């Protein structure tokens, strides 16, 4: 019962959020002062042609009506027409979506593959030399600009070994994975420090809690204390922080896609921004916003798997 209420509440929040996003994007579009009809047809089109297209796009109607029409079009998958190429924005985005999704998934998997074992060694021996090394890593990971880190990886790994392409995305899945490997690693190094810090705090606290003390006094081994007793109770802050990182990770993805010339949404976004191609920028922003919302939804759902209080029916 309670779980259903929470689920409905969350979904309602998602709907409200996405409505807010579309409204914001619509306001940006309206406030830009550019006439979409003129932008699509170009400077040489006659006034009559522009007027006809304005009527066709509904631009002669009041703004609230235009917004409803914009919403309706979005629901039908119609994201508008690119000012620059004249092509459908939806098709442009669909062609780039997969690249960004693969990049983000690999990046989050890699970041957890970095942060979990590192945190484990710290929790096993707090205050040791490794603790200091890991602290240095988290400092470096925090202050390195993603684009520079990406360039360093190109310089130190991609160019000397020749294992990884420095631009493009390839045709087959293995080629895709090779192409996103270094960009994803760049992202992972940017995401791992906060994850390490969060998990370190909660894990160390759990290790000092009465129930772990009780298990220790019963003679449980250290590894059992760490993984069976303390870890399940300390991952929830980690999952929450991953949700918080969603927005930042997407900005990082935008940057590294440009560093590695990966044809994803981020590269398309920057390209369109530099061409003042507002419909593409806005639609991409909406899709990326939806991604952030979905990531935090998934994180919430995973939290319920670890938290009996959220899982229970009472």
């Amino acid at each position, binding site marked *: 019962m309670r779980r259903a209420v929470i689920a409905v509440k969350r979904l309602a929040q998602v709907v409200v*959020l996405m409505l*807010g*996003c579309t409204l*914001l*994007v619509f306001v*940006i579009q309206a*406030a*830009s002062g550019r006439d979409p009809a003129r932008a699509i047809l170009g400077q040489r089109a006659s006034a009559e042609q522009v007027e006809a297209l304005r009527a066709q796009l509904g631009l002669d109607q009041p703004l609230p009506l235009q917004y409803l029409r914009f919403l309706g079009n979005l629901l039908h998958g119609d994201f508008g027409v690119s000012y620059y190429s004249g092509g459908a924005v939806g098709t442009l985005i669909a062609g780039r979506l997969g690249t960004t999704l693969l990049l983000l998934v690999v990046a989050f998997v890699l970041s957890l593959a970095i942060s979990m074992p590192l945190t484990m060694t710290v929790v096993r021996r707090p*205050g040791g030399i490794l603790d200091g090394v890991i602290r240095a890593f988290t*400092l*470096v990971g*925090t*202050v*390195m*600009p*993603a*684009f*520079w880190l990406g*360039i*360093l990886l*190109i*310089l130190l790994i991609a*160019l000397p070994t020749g294992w990884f392409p420095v631009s493009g995305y390839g045709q087959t899945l293995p080629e895709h994975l090779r192409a996103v490997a270094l960009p994803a690693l760049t992202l992972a190094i940017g995401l791992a420090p906060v994850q390490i810090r969060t998990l370190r705090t909660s894990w160390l606290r759990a290790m000092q809690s009465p129930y772990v003390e009780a298990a220790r006094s019963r003679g449980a081994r250290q590894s059992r204390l760490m993984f069976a007793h303390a870890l399940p109770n300390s991952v929830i802050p980690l999952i929450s922080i991953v949700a918080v990182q*969603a*927005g*930042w990770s*997407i*900005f990082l993805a*935008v*940057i590294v896609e*440009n*560093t590695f010339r990966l044809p994803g949404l981020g590269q398309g*976004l*920057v390209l*369109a*921004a*530099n061409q*003042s*191609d*507002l419909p593409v*920028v*806005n639609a*991409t*922003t909406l899709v*990326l*916003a939806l*991604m*952030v*919302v979905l990531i*935090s939804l998934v994180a919430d759902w995973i939290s319920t798997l670890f938290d009996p209080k959220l899982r229970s029916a009472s």
Partner: protein
Amino acid sequence: MSAAPSTIAIATARRQRARARISWIGIGIVVVFALLAVLGPMLTPYDPLAQTLLDRLQPPSAAHLLGTDALGRDVLSRVIAAGRVDLPLGLAAAMISATVGSILGSVGGFIGRWVDTLLMRLGDLVMAFPTYVLVIALVTVMGAGIPAILVSFALLGWIPYARLLRAEIRRVTHEEYIAAARLSGISELRVLLQHVLPNAVRPSIAYFVLDIMMAILTLASLSYLGLGVQPPTPEWGTMVAEGQPYLQTNWWLTAAPGGAIAVLGLGFLLLGESLETRLRG
């Protein structure tokens, strides 16, 4: 766990000393960069904008300590001159966010009720957005450049400040000395400004220092993408982008400005973290 109290005390003292040393490193880095920015024109060996096409893409030498770029401009001079762009802009961006956030946070925390609810819900909405992606949309509308970036910081960067200050204000207003101040009959505004705020700003100060780092990082990233500071103005992110095509032959073109951002960021991070622990304790 079985350690005698004296050993723990020694370890704590040692850790405190190490922390003090680390915060001095942070202060040192920030001071050096600030001095370089202030004294820039006196220190730069060359005009950061002067092109000498005959000397293009020179490796580091005695004449050009960090070599020259594709237009024959001295890289060291440009890295120093860029500090005069990135540092004040980062500071300005963080100050704008802090001002807007502090005003909204005080209003929400002190007045409470529906004002507070409205502001916090608005914050939730903006936070759920990929904020930095939204900056790109704003830049597209306003045109790439500094004004667009400062406006985006004002619109999007206030939330953490508002949240921090609001939480502290709500804690402080329940203290007895605030009740005493109210009883003495001074105006509500004076209660807020003289009695509540001074006791509530501590967490915001530490966050402010970290926010400068984030602002510089964001500014450099946007400039790297061609959406921030426009060439030929020397800016670290722009310089990295300009140097990237020559990565294989002239790696110092990207390493020098990239390193500058990382080292300065490290300075602010160390400073901010030590402030955070000190102001808390």
